[in-house]
């Protein structure tokens, strides 16, 4: 029995190894972002919210490594990563502009059990995204949709301008599903005729969005570090339990 238990535990969390992924497709998400649809023959699956490490090796042996959140639902038969271009980055220009279907890249994961959500975890869910911080939250919403879950969920996505929106059309198709509410705020230039929020996330916005602390939501915040710190402070000041706030920061830009 002891041996079986050990084997079961091992099988639940296989060692982190580098795998070769093959690009099945490249999807244009925005002027600066692409989704890589990857075939991963040995992939053991992931939980919504997890990320992977991607490693590039130059001909001279130089290696560069970056972390990217998984965008797809665990239920999908491919692994999707959405990469946003960092203008002077070392890795993202290659991933966004150079990769073509059939190309291969090295990848390891899934990584991280902290910033994850599955339907049995329940809700209500409060998801707050700054820029491409939407990616792991999108995996959660796709997972929720794939399971036809009616866990109440609210998403606030903060972007500079309409060109920075990710998954806009898909989110519109998800929204009619029971219990999902999606809101955008534009911090630099809202679309013409926009009568919604056009400012940084603030306390009034969060109060209007809900759910309030009394509903004890599970909160996920992802974005640049300054966004995460700002939003987490607003949430705690509003009375939310700090222990219910899970955050993922990707620094000024990523790379």
């Amino acid at each position, binding site marked *: 029995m002891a041996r079986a238990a050990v084997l079961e*535990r091992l099988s*639940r*969390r296989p060692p*982190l190894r580098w795998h070769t992924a093959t690009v099945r497709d490249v999807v244009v998400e925005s002027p600066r972002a692409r989704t890589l649809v990857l075939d991963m023959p040995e992939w053991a699956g992931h939980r919504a919210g997890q*990320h992977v*490490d991607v490693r590039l090796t130059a001909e001279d042996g130089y290696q560069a*490594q970056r*972390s990217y959140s998984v965008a797809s639902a665990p239920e999908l038969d491919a692994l999707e990563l959405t990469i946003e271009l960092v203008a002077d980055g070392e890795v993202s220009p290659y991933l966004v502009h150079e990769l073509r279907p059939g190309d291969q890249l090295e990848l*390891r*994961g899934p*990584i*991280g*059990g*902290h*910033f994850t959500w599955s339907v049995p975890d329940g809700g209500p869910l409060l998801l707050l995204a700054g820029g491409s911080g939407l990616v792991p939250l999108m995996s959660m919403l796709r997972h929720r949709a794939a399971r036809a879950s009616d866990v109440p969920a609210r998403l606030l996505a903060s972007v500079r301008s309409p060109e920075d929106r990710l998954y806009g059309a898909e989110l519109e198709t998800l929204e009619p599903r029971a219990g999902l509410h999606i809101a955008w705020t534009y911090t630099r230039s809202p679309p013409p005729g926009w009568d919604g929020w056009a400012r940084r996330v603030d306390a009034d916005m969060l109060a209007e969005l809900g759910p309030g602390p009394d509903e004890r939501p599970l909160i996920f915040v992802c974005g*640049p*570090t*300054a966004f995460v*710190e700002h939003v987490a402070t607003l949430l705690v000041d509003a009375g939310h339990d700090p222990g219910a706030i*899970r*955050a*993922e*920061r*990707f*620094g*000024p830009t990523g790379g």
Partner: protein
Amino acid sequence: MTELYTDGNDAAGLLAEFMAADPTTTRRRCQSCHAENPLAAHRAYRGAGVVLRCPACGDVAVVIGDCEGELVIEWRGAYRTRRPPQ
């Protein structure tokens, strides 16, 4: 200056090279301030290696570096670490 750090999620791949348990949910109790937080919530500063700092007091928690091809991890000032059921 908040732009200069990320968090323990960012160092999870490196830590996973050492740990059989999920590094992000592993909780560390700080020797300086006694606050207990998951490694995911620690601040991560990337330079030649990665330094994780306690999110409550800022004291150095974990130092990860590559020393001549060897991955080296120093655990600093933890009364204890706890791995939740996985």
